[in-house]
Structures are given as C-alpha cells and as structure tokens.
C-alpha cells in the first residue's frame, strides 16, 4: 500500500512538473533559427517582431540585437536610430516605434527570465 502511494505521489509530482514546464514554456518566447518563433510571441507584438526581423536581418544576424543583453529603452532608442541611418537600411522613420515596441517587450521578457533564474540563488 505504501508503495502504491509512493508511486502515485511520484507520478503526480512528475506530471505536475511536466505541466508546469509546459505552461511556463508557452509563456516564454522561443528561439527558432536565427531569430524567434513568432508563434510564441503574444499577438499584440507579433507584427512588431516580423517588422524587426525583416528589417534587421537585412545587414546582420538577429543575434546581434537579440543576444545583446541590454534591456534599457533608452539604449535601444539610440541603437535603432543608428541602424536606421545606415545606408540602405530600409528602416523608415515611422517604423522605428514598432521596432522599439518589440524590443521593449523582448527586453522585458529577457529581464524577467534573468530575474527568474537569479531567484533561487537569492533564496540561498
């Protein structure tokens, strides 16, 4: 009997862990190829991401901005302006707010991810 209960407990814990992982991963944007899996980006930012990916991959790998690690809006405003002024960038001035909206969302995700990873260490 004790063995059955133990087995049930383990099953529940494993199931809960898997479910929890699934729920958690569905909330996070996932990497795909050189960019992100657009399906894991909330609908309200998906068009912004598509624009960002289309314009920014014209000259360089998307890992440059996505793995940059910077999360400050002010930094991204300066960065995107610098890129917009590059010859043949194809980034029209009116497209900048959309790109910045995505970068703000992504930076917030990154910041949340870093915070989540650092929590257990702080608990120790």
């Amino acid at each position, binding site marked *: 009997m004790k063995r059955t209960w133990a087995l049930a407990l383990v099953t529940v814990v494993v199931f809960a862990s898997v479910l929890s992982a699934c729920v958690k991963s569905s909330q996070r944007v996932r990497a795909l190829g*050189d*960019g992100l899996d657009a399906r894991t980006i909330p609908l309200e930012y998906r068009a912004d991401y598509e624009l960002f990916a289309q314009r920014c991959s014209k000259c360089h790998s998307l*890992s440059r901005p996505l793995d940059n690690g910077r999360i400050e809006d002010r930094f991204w405003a300066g960065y995107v302006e610098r890129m917009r002024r590059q010859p043949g960038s194809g980034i029209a001035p009116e497209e900048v707010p959309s790109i910045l909206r995505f970068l703000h969302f992504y930076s917030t995700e990154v910041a949340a991810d870093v915070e989540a990873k650092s929590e257990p260490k702080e608990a120790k």
Partner: protein
Amino acid sequence: MTTSRWLVVAPLVALVMALFTAPAWAVDRNVAGSLQLDYHLSPERSTPVGSGPTFRGFTTEAALKLTAEISEQASVNFKVCVGCHGFETDMVHLDYRFADELNVRVGRFSPSFGAFNLRHDPANHRLSDKPLVYDMGRMLRVRDWNLGVLPSPFPDNGVEASGTHWFGSKTQLDYAAHLVSGFKGSTAGADLDFVQSRSGSLYYVDNNDQPAYGGRLALTERFSQNGDVTLGASLMRGAFDPGAKLTYTITGADLTLRIDRTNLRIEYLMRRQDLDVSDPTRYRYEVPAKGGDSFVKHGGYAELELPVTASLDLVGRFDALYRSGNVLVDSPLQARSGIFRYTLGTAYSLRRGLRLKYSTELWSFSDTGYAGRNEAVSMHFGVATAF
C-alpha cells in the same frame, strides 16, 4: 602660429567644443563581435611546395567592436580584427551627426563603396568567403592575381561626409563623399600593394601627399512591405606611388533585391590603373609608344540567398574576374586572363548566433597555372558566431 595652421586647428577646436559643451548625456557603450573558423580544402596547388603560404587549411577571422555614444550627435567606433594578416585596426572613427542628411566621419574607416562592404564581417554573410572582386586572400592563385579588384575591408585614414534621406516612406536616398590617404604602391610597382596599404607595421600614413577621393550614391525603393530594391554606384580615385604620378580609378555598380528573407545581389567592379613603363624590359609584352601604360581588372558576382527553413539557407553565387593589360615578365598571367567561379553553399543555424557553413566552389581559369590545369574544385567548412 601661421594662418594656414589656424585654418586646420580652428575647425578641430570648434568640433571638440561642440562635443563637450553638448547637453549632459551619459556615455552609452555597446560591444559586438564575431568569429569565424574556416577550413579551405582544395587539391589545387598554385605554388611549388614550400614556397609560401597557400591559404589552404584553417583560417580564422575575428573582430571586436566598441561603440560609445558620447552625445546625442556624436559617437565613437573602435574595431579591431584578426585575420590571416594578424591584428589590424578596422575602424577608429568619430561620427558627428548634424542631421540625418549630414554625418561627418573622421578617423580610420572603410570609405563607402559598393554594397558588400557593409556586410564584410563573416558573421553577416552566409558563405565562408567573399565575392571574388572583394577577395582578401581565400581565392585560389591569390599571388598570381594579387587578390580581387578591391579587397574588403579597406580601412583608411580620412574624412567622409554622408547622409540619408527618405522621400515619403518608400524611397531612401544614401550618399557619401570621402577624402582618404588612398591605396599605396611602390614607384616601380606593377599593381597596388595591399599589404603596404593597410598594414600598421608599415605605418598607417600616406606614401604621397595626394589624398584619394570618391563617393557613393544609392537609391532604395520599397515595392511592398517585405520587398525592396537598391541601386548603387561608387567611385574611388587616387595616386598610389610615392611621387603621386601613377593613378588608379575604381568604379562600381550594384543591385540588391530583397523579398522577405530572399536576397539577390549583383555587383560589378572595375579598376583601371597606371603602370610604370619607364623600363619596358620589365614587361612581357612590348610597350607601345602610345597607350599600354595601364591595365584594367574588373569583374562581378551574382548571388542568390534563399532561406529554406528558419535555420537553413541555401546560397548560389557566380563570380567572374578578368584582367587585361601588360604583365611583368615573370607573371603567370597573360595579356588577358580570367576566372569563373561557381559556388553552391549552405548555412545552418545551430542556435541563434552560431552558424555552420559549407560550400563547394568550381573554378575555371583561362591560364593553366602551376599544376597545369584550368579547372579546380575547393570546399569550405566553416563555423561562425556573432555576439
């Protein structure tokens, strides 16, 4: 201080004052870099065994760049790179932006020319090597040909004024004009000396007092949300010998078509350059009394970059390089020599920022070369990362 010295110093003082009296602005820095390791496999030997490097085998290209925004208008870029040539300074320059339509760049940088140079970093292109006209050392028979038309990058000391202007939201006009030291060569040189031109160990200073000049004009037209086309034209002209008597002129035209992530790129470059014919016995062919004191090296490429999946890209490229004109007595080239190269490659993203590259190249030469063949095959196995 003489009046002429004041004319030089006064604008610099004004620029420094403008920079440091600008409204308070926290200096923002950004670091970026790239690394590529490539293995070039080719049975072709263009030189006798033991006579020098063959550029077969492993090559590494790495770069580290620091950008510091020192005010809303001013930024400084510092980039060093490591390649076959050891450490080089790819850029150290100050940008001062008066408006989108006017940016002034001073320092060491690659002047605006052509479409490829903006993507010359190996993390920014899908194949391991560069188009033949921009080749800086990976091409077969590199010594025979003395590289491509304009080996990229081509950092130089000088000043460039550039700008961009949007007409509505569909048309972008880019323009740039530069004044730089220019390429170098020796008095009796039969070609540009690219090592002397870029190597710090031979001093980053000009070998004559004549600056080189040039510029670029490009128009980008967007025809759909995810499609645009760019047409560009570029020029460089200068004197390369210490006496500033021998000149070179490089012209280029480019077309880039982008639909979604598919890119079609076509570029043509031509270099016309003087030969020192004061001693005609150095040349294989008779030097005519009129003309015959120059040669032309030109070529181009057409490249199609096609994403197959989010992680996999296919690339096809056709290169051509052609040289016409007199050659030194011991040159393996003829009065007219040419190369065709056909490349089929693929790039696979293992993860974001980490890419595996593979390509096969078929070479067709007009000359038989050291090994007595006109054809050659080579392969590139590369891994590149951007950070």
